[in-house]
Structures are given as C-alpha cells and as structure tokens.
C-alpha cells in the first residue's frame, strides 16, 4: 500500500479502435470506470468543427433549460429531491423533447401568472391610491367646510365659488400656504372658470420620490402642488414583479401644457398613474369594484399558482437525475470529439493513457460495452510504444490525499520518480510540531481535528471556501495535533506551564536535598545536583525545575538550536539518499557517481561532522569533566585555520583559542574533512558534462555507421541521445546545480534554525499571555477581573496562538519541505493523470 504511493503508477499508451455504432456506449462505460485519459487528437480543429459539435450544443441547450428549471424551483421554494436514480433513464432525444415540452409549459404558466399578478398588483396599487388620496381629499373637505363656515359667517362669499369642484381643490392649496388662505381662496374662485386645476394620482418608488418632486417643480416652474404619502411595508411592482417601497402621490397643476409635461415625467421616472374620481360616491363605488375584482383575481391566481407548483414539484423529483444524465452525455460527446474519425466514418480511433493496474478494468468495460451495443465488430485495444513522458498518477485515499496535495502544490512528480509525499506524511506534522510544541495547544487542536474527522460525512456538505480548505486538511491537522502533544511533552509545556507528570524534579539542592529550590542558595551559586536516590534524568522531556530560572532560556535555546541542526541534517541527508534511489531506478550511474556521492560526502564532511560533535558533546560531558569546546568556533576555525585547531601561533607556541579543542587528533580529522569538501566541488562540477559530451560524440560517430540500418533499431541505443545536445547548456546547468548545492548546504542548514526560532517564539508568546494576562488577573483576587482576564487570555490563545501561530508554523513547515527537503532530489516536472470520469465531471457541475 505504501509502496503504491512511493512511485507513481505505471502507465501505458493505448489505442482504441471503436466501431462507430458502439463508440458512445464504450465511452460511457470508460467514463464510469474513470481510468482512461483521452488525448485530444483533433487539437487543430475548432470546437464547432468537430464531429459531435451539434450534440454538444444540444446538451448545452438542455443544460440551460435544466438551469432555468432549477432557478424556477428554487424561487418557488420547492425542495429538489436528491439523485433517486430509480426512474427509467430517458433516451437523449426523448429527454430533449420532454424538456422542451416542460419548458414551454412552464413559460406559458409563467406568462399567464405574470399577467394575472400584474393586474393583481395594479389593483392593489389602485386600492392604495384610493385609500391614501382619498385621505388627502377628506382632510381637504374638512378644511374647506371649516373655512366655508367661517366665510359664510363673514358673508363675503362670491357666488361662483360655491360650486363644489373648486371649493374642494382650492383649500388644498390653502392648507399648504396657511397664511394667505383667504386671498387665494378668492383669486382661485375668480379664476375657476378659465383655469381649472387638474390632478394626477399614482405611485412612485420611494427612493425616486425626491428626484420626482424636484423635477416636477422645475418642469412646471413651481406651478404645481404635490402631496405624497409613504406606504408602510413593501408593494409589489406590476412591471418588475418585485416588492419595493413606494409612495402615493397626488400632483395638482394648472393648464394643459403642464399636464403633458407631468405625464411625460411620470413615464420617465417609472411612476404608475391611476385614475381617481373626484366624486366621493364614485370613489366608494370604485373601491368596491376593486375589492371585488381583487377577490376574483385571488382565486384565479391561487389556482394558477397551484398548477405551476404542481408542474415544478414534478420537475423537482427528477431534476437531479436529468442533470446527471445530460451532464454525462455532454461529457461523452466532448470525449468523442477528441477521437479522430476514420474517412469512411465506420470507426473512431482513440488514444490515451491508462494505468497498467487498471488495464483489466478498462478492457472489461470495453468488452461489456461492445456486448451491450451488440456491435458486429468488437473494439480493438492495443498498446502503443512511445517515448512520450506518461502522466503521473498516484492512488491516494482520504488520509494521504492532503499530503499528496501539499507536494503537488509545488510540482507534480515526474513519471515514476520518488514521491516525497510518503515522507511528508510523517515529517510534515513532525516539523510543524517542533515549532508548535505545547501539550495544551496540541490538545485543543486535537479536539478540533477529531471533531472534523468524526463528523466528516456531515461536514462534507458545508459550502464555505475557508472551511473547505481546513476540512480538506483535517487528517493533516489531526497528525499535527498529535505530534504537537508529543513535542509539548518533550518541551514539558502545557499552555507554557511545566507539567509534573513524573514528579516535580529529579534535581535537588546540593546542600540539603529536602530544601525547596526557592530557598536553596547553593543551588543559585553552583547549580543543583541530581537526586542521589533516583540518579536518572527526568523520565520524558525537560525537567520542570528549569521553569522560571534565570538560565531557562539559555538551556532551551541551546537544546532547540542543536536539535534543529540535527533534524535538518537528517532530513537533507535523507533527501540526498532519495536522489540515489531515483538514480538507481532510472539507471543513471553517471549521476550516481558524479552527483550523489560528492553531495553526500560534502554534506557529511561539514554538517554531518557538526551533528556528530553536538551528539558527542551531549553524551560525553560530565559534571567533573565538562566539555567546554564552543562548537561555533570549532566550525569557524575549521575553515579559517584548517589543521590548526587551537590557533597555535607557530612562533610563540601559544594557543590562541584553546576552547576549540575537543578531542585529540581533531586537527588531522578536520584537515581531512576540509580536503574532502574541496575535492567534492570540482567532482560535482566537471565530470558529468564532460562525460555526457564524450558519449554524445561517440553516439554521433556511431550514428554515421548506423545510418544504413533501420531507424527503429537506433531508438533503443541510448536514452535521449537523439535529443539536441548543447554542451554549453549542460555545463551552465551543472554549474548552477553545483553552486546551488554548495551554498545550499550552508543556507539550508541555517534555514532549519527556523524550527528553533518559531518554537522559541511560540513558547515566549504563550508564557507572556499566561503570566501577563491570566496570572495578573488571578493575583488581583477580584472575581470579575479574573473572568475578564480569563476571557482575554482565551481569546489571545485562540486568536494569536491557535490561529496565527499555527498558520505560520504550517507555512514554515511547508517551506522546509518544498525547498530544503525536495530540492535535493525532486524534479516535479511531471503532469497529472486526468482520467475521463463521470464522477469528476459531475462533481465539477456540483451534482
């Protein structure tokens, strides 16, 4: 199983010769299997010039209809039943006819319904106008009667104005201009015969009401009177069919020209005008009429709506099935378009890649297809010899998928090269955990990731981009959390506090073992001693006694730094050895000798040696004979004065830097290592291009001799000998490669120090949050403050540590894998195997 992932699946280039009558069935079966990648044999043809373009167009049209149905169904709030698959599948032509029929039916129902609901909303609007405008007029009537009473009392009333028409209108103006009521009344009365006031009523969108008023004012030069009343709630617009905020208006004006202007304006701002009778009696009559018609319309509308819903809910039952069917058909025709057609149109030729393991399934599907379509001629399946690079295909499962994605994001593996994803499964969460090491934070993350893993079926339907990203990485997060708990145990940190799982400490005060550390003065001076009763270091991880001491940072820094270097060297060395595995697999002895061996030697001579010194220093030091050698200096002086470890001045004979000396014979060993490194550089640089050049020249010479023979024979001669050979290119490439490796050896090792840096940052941040927020709050002994501080601490832990820190540790781990690890062996210039599969096609369509 693991070895499946180690190298990509073996591929073969196959040719299918399909009889025309069974081609469709065969492609369908292959789509179900999903293990065949078709090559486009018509790449030079435009999309519509291909054989099955018309079928693709038909499918597109059907999909459009289905989208239309889905939209209508969603608008009507009807649940679409999931893929049932029970119905007998229609033939494509039959389905097309059915869809067409349904579409016309639905469109007709829609237009009927639209007409009805349009008149319905018009009536509703009219009703509103009657109600609101009636209100204006009623108010006016009350005013007019009061004014008339007053005027009667004064007995000034001219005869002409006693007619009911103007006396209704004029007081309206008066109510607007309170002060000049009587004068206007008189002038209005006198002019009533020549310039009768007219009015227009209707509804306008509330948002446009202001602009409407302004334009009205300008257009009539102020010779109008506008009354508006906002309608509470939304009103359905007859034309748009959506619910909008509206306002009822009544405009009064004088003269015919103003009338045309106002009518035009109403049209321009999209206001709906409605007739409004002046007469009270006719008003109430109209109101009753409108009410009656509304009731009737309600009945018809409901009936229509029920019928439409019936059609829609019938559709909803099989909509998913139809979409799946049409989607599959379209995909089949797309694939058929990639096939080249024989001149006689009797058969189609397909070429494509197929994994060797799936050959049985593919041929089986082909056989079944030709049996089912009862074709006279069976499909021919044959393997083609090729030099083309096959696609890369890994069989992943839900756990390995995310790690394969991490690797693929950098580059898809070359065909059959070692797949770093195998190692990434363990090293990625581990390196993450080194930076994120805290038992408590790991525990929180574990809770979160196990939630994702346990409820993965339920959560798979959530449609949120960010959540889906986290969801896809749930198994990676799970491993990351488990490793974090492990490293947290090693660092002995639980939300930055040490855990005393194995006793409080294995150290005691040297003067009196029973004395607590806080009162142990000797301990502060000379350090603690190991508890003589236990005589072992702390069982797992860092002794809790380090916490809070002055030397805590120095201790953990030194430990984490050295640990980072060792882990880096181990991972890089593993990378180089994987390149050897690649060289062996591709039978590239030249690279094995001229690249792998010098690379290993170089890295081992420099940082392998350093790691060795680190481990030696850890193991050999005792209390009585501590090793004082400073490993920075050892490394620096190894290059500054090779062979002369303690910087012995040759004249005075005095050692300038005796702290460099760690063991006897160090000078000789280091001199040898430096010599090895110096040899390795030209070894990596020169032999490979020179040998390649020589081989090429030999091939050329041999080629002249072989010219008489058949071309096919020469193809098994050598790998890529026929490709164009440009010596300068290869040399430059090799120079770059060498420089990259030599500089990279130093910079990549330094790069692993990020493990230490991030781990330090994480520990310090969580300590600060603990001490400065939570502990500070607790020390104040006020319950409210404690709750508030706990809240702040929890927020800081979630926001900063769990979210931001984990993201940054993730990115750094990603970088260490992509750059430091993979550049040692990974080419990543392959291309993915994209099989023709219905499952993929339909998931892209969100079905």
């Amino acid at each position, binding site marked *: 199983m693991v070895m499946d992932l180690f190298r990509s699946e073996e591929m073969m280039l196959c040719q299918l010769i399909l009889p025309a009558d069974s081609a469709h069935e065969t492609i369908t079966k292959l789509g179900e299997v999903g293990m065949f990648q078709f090559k486009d044999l018509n790449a030079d043809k435009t999309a519509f010039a291909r054989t099955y373009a018309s079928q693709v167009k038909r499918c*597109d049209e059907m999909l459009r209809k289905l989208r239309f149905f889905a939209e209508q169904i969603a608008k009507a709030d009807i649940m679409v039943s999931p893929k049932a698959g029970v119905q007998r599948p229609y033939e494509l032509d039959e389905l097309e006819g059915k869809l067409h029929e349904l579409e016309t039916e639905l469109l007709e129902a829609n237009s009927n319904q639209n007409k009805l609901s349009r008149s319905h909303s018009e009536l509703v609007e009219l009703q509103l106008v009657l109600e609101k405008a009636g209100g204006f007029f009623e108010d006016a009537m009350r005013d007019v009667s009061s004014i008339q009473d007053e005027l009667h009392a004064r007995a000034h009333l001219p005869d002409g104005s006693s007619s009911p028409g103007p006396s209704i209108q004029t007081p309206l103006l008066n109510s607007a201009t309170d002060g000049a009521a009587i004068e206007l009344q008189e002038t209005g009365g006198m002019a009533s015969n020549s310039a009768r006031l007219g009015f227009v009523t209707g509804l306008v969108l509330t948002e446009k009401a202001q*602009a409407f008023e302004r334009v009205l004012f300008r257009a009539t030069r102020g010779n109008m009177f506008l009354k508006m009343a906002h309608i509470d709630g939304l009103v359905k617009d007859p034309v748009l069919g959506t619910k909008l905020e509206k306002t009822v208006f009544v405009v009064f004006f004088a003269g015919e020209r103003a009338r045309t202007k106002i009518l*035009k304006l109403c049209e*321009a701002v*999209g206001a709906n005008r409605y007739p409004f009778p002046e007469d009270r009696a006719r008003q109430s009559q109209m109101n009753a009429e409108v009410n009656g018609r509304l009731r009737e319309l309600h009945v018809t509308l409901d009936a229509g709506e029920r019928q439409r819903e019936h059609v829609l809910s019938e559709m909803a039952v099989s909509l998913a099935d139809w979409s799946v069917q049409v989607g599959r058909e379209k995909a089949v025709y797309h694939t058929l378009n990639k096939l080249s057609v024989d001149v006689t149109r009797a058969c189609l030729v397909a070429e494509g890649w197929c994994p060797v393991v799936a050959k049985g399934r593919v041929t089986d599907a082909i056989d079944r297809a030709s049996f089912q379509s009862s074709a006279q001629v069976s499909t021919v399946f044959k393997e083609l010899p090729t030099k083309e690079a096959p696609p890369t295909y890994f069989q992943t499962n839900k756990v390995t998928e995310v790690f394969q994605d991490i690797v693929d994001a950098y580059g898809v593996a070359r065909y059959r090269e070692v797949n770093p994803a195998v190692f990434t499964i363990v090293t990625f969460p581990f390196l993450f955990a080194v930076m994120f090491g805290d038992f408590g934070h790991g525990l929180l993350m574990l809770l979160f990731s196990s939630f994702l893993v346990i409820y993965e079926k339920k959560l798979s339907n959530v449609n949120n981009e960010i959540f889906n990203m986290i969801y896809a990485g749930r198994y990676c997060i799970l491993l990351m959390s488990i490793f974090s708990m492990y490293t947290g145990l090693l660092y002995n940190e639980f939300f930055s506090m040490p855990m005393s799982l194995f006793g409080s400490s294995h150290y005691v005060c040297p003067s009196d073992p029973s004395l607590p550390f806080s009162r142990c003065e000797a301990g502060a001076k000379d350090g603690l001693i190991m508890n003589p009763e236990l005589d072992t270091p702390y069982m797992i991880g860092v002794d809790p006694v380090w916490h809070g001491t002055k030397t805590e940072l120095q201790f953990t820094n030194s430990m984490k730094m050295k640990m980072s270097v060792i882990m880096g060297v181990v991972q890089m060395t593993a990378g180089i050895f994987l390149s050897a595995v690649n060289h062996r697999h591709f039978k590239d002895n030249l690279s094995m000798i001229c690249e792998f061996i010098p690379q290993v030697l170089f890295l081992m001579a420099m940082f392998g040696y350093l790691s060795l010194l680190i481990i030696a220093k850890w193991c050999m030091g005792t209390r009585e004979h501590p090793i004082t050698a400073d490993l920075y200096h050892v490394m620096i002086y190894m290059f500054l004065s090779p062979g002369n470890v303690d910087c012995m001045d040759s004249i005075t004979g005095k050692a300038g830097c005796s702290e460099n000396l760690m063991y006897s014979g160090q000078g000789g060993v280091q001199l040898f290592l430096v010599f090895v490194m110096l040899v390795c550089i030209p070894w990596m640089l020169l032999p490979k291009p020179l040998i390649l050049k020589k081989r090429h020249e030999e091939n050329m010479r041999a080629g002249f001799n072989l010219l008489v023979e058949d071309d096919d024979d020469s193809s098994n001669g050598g790998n890529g000998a026929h490709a164009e050979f440009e010596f300068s290119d290869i040399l430059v490439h090799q120079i770059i490669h060498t420089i990259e490796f030599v500089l990279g050896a130093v910079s990549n090792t330094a790069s692993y120090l990020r493990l230490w840096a991030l781990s330090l940052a994480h520990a310090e941040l969580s300590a600060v949050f603990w001490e400065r927020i939570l502990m500070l709050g607790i020390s104040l002994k006020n319950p409210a403050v404690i709750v508030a501080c706990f809240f702040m601490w929890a927020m800081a832990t979630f926001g900063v540590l769990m979210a931001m820190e984990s993201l940054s540790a993730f990115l750094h781990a990603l970088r260490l894998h992509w750059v430091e690890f993979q550049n040692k062996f990974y080419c990543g210039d392959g291309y993915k195997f994209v099989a023709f599969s219905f499952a993929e096609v339909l998931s892209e369509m969100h079905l």
Partner: protein
Amino acid sequence: MYGWEALYFNAKDGYAEALVRGLRRGLLTASEYTQLCQCETLEDMRLQLQNTSYGAALANEPAHSLTASALFDRCTRTLVEEMQHLRCQASQPLADFLDLITRGYMIDNVVLLVTGTLRERDVQELLEKCHPLGLFDSIGTLAVAQNMRELYKFVLVDTPLAPYFSECLSCEDLDEMNIEIMRNTLYKAYLDDFASFSEKLGGATSEFMSEILSFEADRRTITITINSLGTELTRDDRRKLYSNFGTLYPQGQLALATCEDTDQVRNVLESHSAFSAVTSRMSYSEGTGALLDKVFFEEEVKRAVGAFEMQFHYGVFYAYLKLKEQEIRNLLWISECVAQDAKDRIYDGIVYIF
C-alpha cells in the same frame, strides 16, 4: 519618465491595475478571430466563445432568441460588469478617472434620448438602447425638455455633465442640427476636462492620456469637418466645435474650418504626417464614412495596446475599455455577417487587437 509613482502606485492602485492587466489577457487574439470567422451559425459562435470572458454571459441565452443584437447586449453587459468591478476596487483619484471615462457615454446617451423624443419614440425603448456605462439617475426625465435651457435646468444640472453645458446654453429649439452641435460642444468640453484632469495626475498617466486624448480630439475634428461638409454650418461655428488641443491645433484646424469638400480635407491632412494612413484611404470614394471609422479604430487600438507597455499609470484602464469596446464591435460585426450569411465581407470589419 516614470517619476516617483513607482514608489507608491502599487500601494493604492496596484490591485486595480493587476485586475485590468488580467482582464486584458482575456481579449481575443487574431487566431481566435479566425476561428470565429469560420462559424456557420451564432450557436457556433457561442460554442467558440464558451471559454472566453463572454462564456458565462452567453450560456443562459435560449438558443432560439440568440440574435446578433442579443449577443452584443450580453457582451456589452460583461464589459459593464468588468468596469463596475474595477470602479468598486478603485480609490481616489482612480475612481474619478474611471468616472470621467464614462462621461463620454453619458453625452451620447443624452443625445440619443433627446433625438429619440424629438422623433416621439417611447422613453423606455430609448432607455434600453442607451449605453449602460452612461446611465445616470433621472436620465429618463430628459424627455420632457423642449430646448437646451430646459434640458439643463430640469435634469442635467444635477449630473456631472452640468459644467460642460456652459457653452451651449442658448435657448434654441432642439432640432437635429442643434443636437449635433450640442453633442460636439459637450464633447469638446468633456475632452478639455479630461485632458486637464489627467494633466493634474501627472507622470506616465498624463503622458499617455494627453497623447491618446489628442488623438481623440483630432479624430473628432476630422469627423466634424467631414460630416459638416455641405451643411449650413458656418466656418466659425465649425471652428468652435473643434477641440482646443490635438496635433491639428491650431493651424490644421484653421485650414480644416475652411474646407468645402473632401479633396480639400485630404489636402490639409496630407501636410500632417500622422494622418497619411487616413488620407490614403480617403481617396477611394465618396462613401468614406465607414472606412474612415475603421482606420481610426485601427489607430486607436494600436495606441491602446501601447498603453500596456508602460506601468504605473491609469491609461491602461482607458485603453482596456477602448480595446474591449472594439472587441465587442468586432463580435457584433462577425455575428451580423454570420447571421446574414455575408461571409465574404467578414474580414473587412474586424480590427485585430493582437
């Protein structure tokens, strides 16, 4: 040449510029046009356009209602959506710049509506014909106006076009001639405003924009001249419509103002090397209108493509709009040719962008 905008440009406008450069990558290439020209039906065109920026907009158009004008509408809608998206992403002064770009369409819409109402067309019908980039609130109320003063007082005083009206506030009635004069006066004021605005922006923006706007000014000058030949427009009136900048300003304009037939126009233009392409086409026939347009479009496309060679300037937005507009014109031409089965002329109307 770049000034200091390289220091701060990306902080403010980098995203919008990246967007517009990304959109430019979606413009159709010559080979795609060749493929489109081979289409037999509009359905074929839709299939061919499926993987372009127009794909999504065209997908939901029912097959039976797919006409050349529907295709044009849908394509224009994608352009409008793109421009609105850019406008939403823009900060000042880019937002102002993008607003200024759309003023030209506003002018066209105003003219369209006013002429439409003169001929007593339905307002809603006219509104549908307006370019969606040049729509503004209360544009429909234009229909009420009887003369220019009313036009200004009722409606346009609230719109950004108001300042451009200072030149044409005469009380003259709206007849076709006056409307055309109004359009050109407005455009002249607009170009002046746009030029001075981009001048203020400085740097590569003003450099590119002054070049392309002076081209625009020259183009308008020449079109005005040719269109006014044989009309009652006096020389002085004609001169007034010419822009106050451009390579033809002022000597060429003086000469053009006196022209009375196309030969004279050609003679004037021949003395300006920049217009040699124009003059060589003009000699063919009297019906130069369409041909002349194409020459200008080609020239404009050439300049607009050049805008993308420089970085850190707003010209790319202007250039993108022009290129996309041209592309949609090309698509309209192709679809008309396909729909009317006039394939022999299909290559005549296409202005290749790349």
